[in-house]
């Protein structure tokens, strides 16, 4: 079964390559890293030349760029947003604060490790990373999609209990996100490729 899934037909290879050329990024300024997004999107760095375009609603977006630290209050909204996005979807953690708290390591208000709450495809280290770093990481993501290796999103369906447990720990109780992840998994027959 798993072998069959990992083997891609030539047709799928072509389509993977093509769909890597179009990435829509959710336009959500979660933290201070958002200040480097306008330069990346506009005149000087122009990430649209790689087919990366900002989108305003989660339903249409492919990339959720977490631009920096997440306060607990924002994390709740980010999880809602993440679950509303349609798979395949990728989370890119931007800045040191998503990796291990960064310079807010002793803050009571920010979460320290993003991959406890949602599967992260790529991290960009730095405080803050430059626009070139954003673009190069997106190019890495495009390559992975083209090779059919960008499968981190399946992890959320597979290990949903783990993520939900961590989320509830932070919020201090059950949360209702109104997206039934488990039944989505069955409805759309999502299976993890490598595991």
């Amino acid at each position: 079964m798993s072998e069959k899934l990992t083997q891609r037909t030539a047709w799928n290879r072509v389509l993977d390559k093509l769909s890597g050329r179009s990435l829509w990024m959710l336009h959500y300024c979660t933290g201070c890293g958002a200040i480097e997004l306008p330069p990346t999107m506009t005149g000087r760095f122009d990430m649209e030349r790689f087919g990366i375009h900002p989108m305003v609603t989660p339903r249409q977006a492919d990339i959720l760029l977490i631009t920096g630290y997440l306060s607990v209050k924002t994390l709740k909204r980010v999880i809602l947003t993440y679950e509303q996005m349609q798979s395949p979807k990728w989370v890119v953690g931007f800045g040191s604060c998503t990796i291990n708290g960064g310079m807010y390591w002793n803050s009571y208000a920010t979460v320290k490790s993003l991959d406890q709450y949602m599967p992260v495809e790529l991290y960009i280290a730095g405080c803050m990373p430059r626009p070139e770093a954003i673009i190069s990481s997106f190019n890495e993501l495009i390559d992975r999609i083209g090779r059919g290796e960008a499968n981190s999103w399946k992890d959320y369906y597979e290990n949903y209990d783990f993520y939900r447990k961590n989320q509830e720990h932070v919020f201090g109780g059950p949360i209702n996100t109104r997206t039934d992840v488990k039944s989505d998994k069955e409805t759309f027959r999502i299976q993890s490729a490598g595991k």
Partner: protein
Amino acid sequence: MSEVLERINRSFDEPEDEHDEVREYTLFIGPNHPGIEGNFALKLSLEGDTIVRAKTDGGYLHRGFEKLMEERLFMQNIAIVCRICVPDPDPNEENYARAVEAIAGIEVPERAKWIRVLVLELSRIASHLFTFGGHAGTIGLYTMPNWSIADRDRILDLFEELTGGRVYHIYNMPGGVRRDFPDGFERRVHEVMDYIESRLPDYDDLFFNNAILRKRAEGIGVLTSDQAIRWGATGPNLRAVGIPADLRRDDTYEVYDKLEFDIPTLTGGDALDRLLVRRKEIEESIRIVRQVVDNIPSGKVWNKQPNPLKWRVPAGDAYVRTESSKGEYAYYMVSDGGQRPYRVHVRGASTTHGVHILENLLVGTRIEDASQVMFSLDACPPEVDR
């Protein structure tokens, strides 16, 4: 959007009277919405298209800076203060450095004072260019952000050359600034200033004189001079109602008293005038930067301070204020004679116009103008949340 989508509020306010049932509904704008400056939310009660009540919802960017500063050494805090206001970080460093200097009685070399003015004014230009991009975005004129934010990058390049950082500079320290100009820096500052000045007529053609902007921004979010004082407006928002109040003049700091500049004012108090005041301020800032680069005295840039790991600042308190691009930016610092500040209170410039004034101005405007009002006030959520 997550707010909008998930808590899509079909829950109309509880009907008091049977027939009134469907007159009012609630709409969440933000925190994930392009028409909002940063990570911030508005909860609007609407009747048809008109806003009858508005509440802001902040705290999405709360990191507890004031608490973090109490747990760090005086020197360590320089690295984190600039993160408080992201688009315009330098007033934070300036305030922090001046507060420590005021408590500890540290002298600053003359050259460092001039360099600080240069950095503050460059930061003001960059921040205003950023705001123009945002404001143009709210009315759908996407050519303007592409131009102005790309031009802002030239200033960021100057910063990078001078301080090593594009966005966060960590450059002002108690006792001076971290390093002197690199070779030929003065010339490059002049080049960038000339370039930005040459671009201003283009911005006028594209944006400030654009018929649609005039039509949409005129008469939107009008603030009268009486309201501005009563609601505590500061900075460009206060100058747009005709009050020439500017901390650079009134509560002068560094070397602003030696420089020639005007304080532009307009009298309309609407969104358009607030925008035009900022546009005029860019010209004044360019003037200041040129004066600084031409007249800067030579000398050292930093008076050496004791070992930062053992540095104790004597007990005392100080309230320092800086005119940032958004308005009055103030720090209240208390030291109890220890190695760490006892308490730092940050009064972000947007705490008045980003919350109270915004809530009041939104009432009576229409939903399509909500984000325009917010951008014209230039509210900066990280300052509110800290």
